């Protein structure tokens, strides 16, 4: 992407609350018409970034640029962007029509134009005919649509969305994800979207910004982030993965779980300790032989498209996915091609499901294979 179409730029943004650093010298460039998702665990500072862009929170340090202009001192109501709040924040004393018309009325738009715009917006979010409904009797999904229509009625250049689908059930979420993406594309505006649902991020975004502890951890297209996570943290956060400690003996040769595997990675020091990440769907279960990791099938769960299996190899429990399943109790071998093995610099990150992986039953609690 060329740099001329930058719409928002954050430079060296820091923010602390009660002495606790929430954002740490963060830099972020967002391009026009891009669907950018901020993704990260709870408390990593996603909402804070959004609120700084919206003008509701003032950063301690750093600058916010909007179309090249510094907007540090611009109050929210003068910023050319609009927000869809997680709790919808609809005005309960106004009906659907007046909610959507709110921003236009403030700008003293002629009544005729308001009527036209409101109609257009309600059509966009599939709420035609709801004009005179009270907002507090609408369903959660409908309320969310009103909130989106209300924000879009102002013709913002950028729409900020803070976990807009967080309160909806799974099926509604999926539907709204598709709709939101469509809306973003048809209007051709920038969406900055906050979520901690990695699947949502993968399906909707042009760019995913993976955050951790107030810092940007990795940024890239969904494919990049999924296929080439820079470390165990991103790998674990985006999609399921098996993360095991390993030793890089030399270029293209890594040892983990007591076996040596050929891999595509190089440039590590000799015998450097590394993290090895393997996606469950890359694992192929085969007849065991002594060259590969072997284990016993412990559980099999049917997931619709595939079976999800857990393979016990001593204390380590491997996650594997396949369209055919091996029966529980069978001994299998884990077959990996060099392509399936992702070697990463050792990070102090501990996968949040490490408990399940390392110590599956209470008797083993406290033991650890490292």
């Amino acid at each position, binding site marked *: 992407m060329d740099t001329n179409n930058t719409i928002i730029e954050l430079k060296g943004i820091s923010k602390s609350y009660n002495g606790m650093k929430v954002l740490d010298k963060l830099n972020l460039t967002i391009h026009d018409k891009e669907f950018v998702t901020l993704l990260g665990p709870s408390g990593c500072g996603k909402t804070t970034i959004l609120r700084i862009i919206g003008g509701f929170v003032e950063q301690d340090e750093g600058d916010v640029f909007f179309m090249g202009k510094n907007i540090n001192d611009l109050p929210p109501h003068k910023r050319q962007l609009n927000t869809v709040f997680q709790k919808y924040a609809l005005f309960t*004393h106004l009906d659907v029509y007046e909610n959507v018309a709110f921003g236009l009325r403030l700008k003293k738009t002629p009544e005729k134009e308001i009527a036209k715009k409101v109609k257009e917006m309600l059509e966009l979010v599939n709420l035609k005919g709801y004009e005179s409904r009270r907002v507090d009797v609408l369903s959660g999904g409908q309320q969310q649509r009103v909130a989106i229509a209300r924000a879009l009625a102002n013709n913002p250049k950028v729409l900020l969305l803070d976990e807009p689908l967080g309160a909806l059930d799974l099926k509604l979420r999926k539907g709204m994800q598709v709709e939101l993406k469509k809306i973003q594309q048809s209007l051709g505006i920038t969406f900055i979207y906050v979520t901690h649902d990695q699947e949502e991020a993968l399906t909707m975004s042009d760019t995913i910004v993976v955050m951790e502890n107030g810092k940007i951890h990795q940024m890239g297209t969904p494919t990049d982030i999924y296929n080439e996570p820079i470390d165990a943290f991103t790998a674990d956060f985006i999609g399921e993965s098996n993360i095991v400690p390993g030793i890089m003996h030399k270029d293209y040769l890594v040892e983990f779980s007591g076996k040596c595997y050929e891999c595509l990675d190089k440039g590590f020091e000799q015998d450097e300790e590394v993290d090895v990440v393997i996606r469950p769907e890359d694992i192929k279960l085969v007849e065991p032989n002594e060259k590969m990791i072997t284990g016993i099938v412990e559980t099999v769960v049917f997931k619709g498209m595939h079976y999800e299996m857990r393979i016990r190899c001593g204390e380590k429990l491997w996650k594997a996915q396949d369209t055919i399943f091996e029966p529980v109790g069978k001994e299998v071998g884990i077959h990996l091609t060099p392509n399936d093995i992702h070697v990463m610099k050792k990070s102090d990150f501990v996968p949040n499901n490490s408990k399940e992986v390392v110590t599956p039953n209470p008797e083993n609690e406290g033991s650890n294979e490292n």
Partner: protein
Amino acid sequence: MINLKAKWAAGPYIVWMILFTIIPMLMILYYAFTDNNGAFTFENMVSAWDYVPTLIRSIWLALIATVICLIMAFPFAYSISRKPMSKQKMFVMLVMLPMWMNFLLRTHALAQLFEDNGIINTVLQSIGIGRIQMMGTEFAVVVGMVYNFLPFMILPLYSIMTKIDQSLVESAHDLGANNIQVLFKILIPLSVPGIVSGITMVFVPAVSTFVISKFLGGTDFYLIGDAIEAQILGNSYNLHTGSATSLILMVIVIITMLIFSRIDTEEVEETLA
């Protein structure tokens, strides 16, 4: 639909209401329209008519006090409703604190401040401004009303405002509203129920008070409450005109409240827009 149990549960209060609300009202009605011999008459209503100037004055002062209360209470209630919960509790306590002291004592204490030789005048004199006559003025009476009834304005406003989520204020700003527009388009319309009940709770006791005017109004400051008190308990004893005067006051209050309770959010929104 009310089931039998719910009906019975309301029983004690219904008995109470009959004894202390319905029967007294009927008695007022009876006295207002009868003479000493118990014969029907409009005579009392005619004599009560003499009190109309007093009534107007009472309504006027109560209105001023109510408006002052509203203007002071609204921003205060809003600002405490935005504070963290622990601080909110502390402020609510502070608001209620004076209410734990007896109403008569409180008013009496205020009178001490306002007296010709009271604390305020002593201070004023010592800094060279000189004494100001405050007792017996409308100023003192209105201050007395505000002092006594302000918590009744703050509390309903505060309790409705805690329900206004900060995200509403933020989204209004987000859509382009400045502070004044947020006040008139969001905060006031959403506070209407609190405003209505606050006004009711201040105006009704203020318009019928006799303690405040008695303590702070001096000898010849007469409000409708004083008139009624004098007729029912005091020196111009006449139960019949007293009842008639009460009745007129009551009707006026009820009419005001009816008009008031009809105000709904939409109308406010329309007039403000």
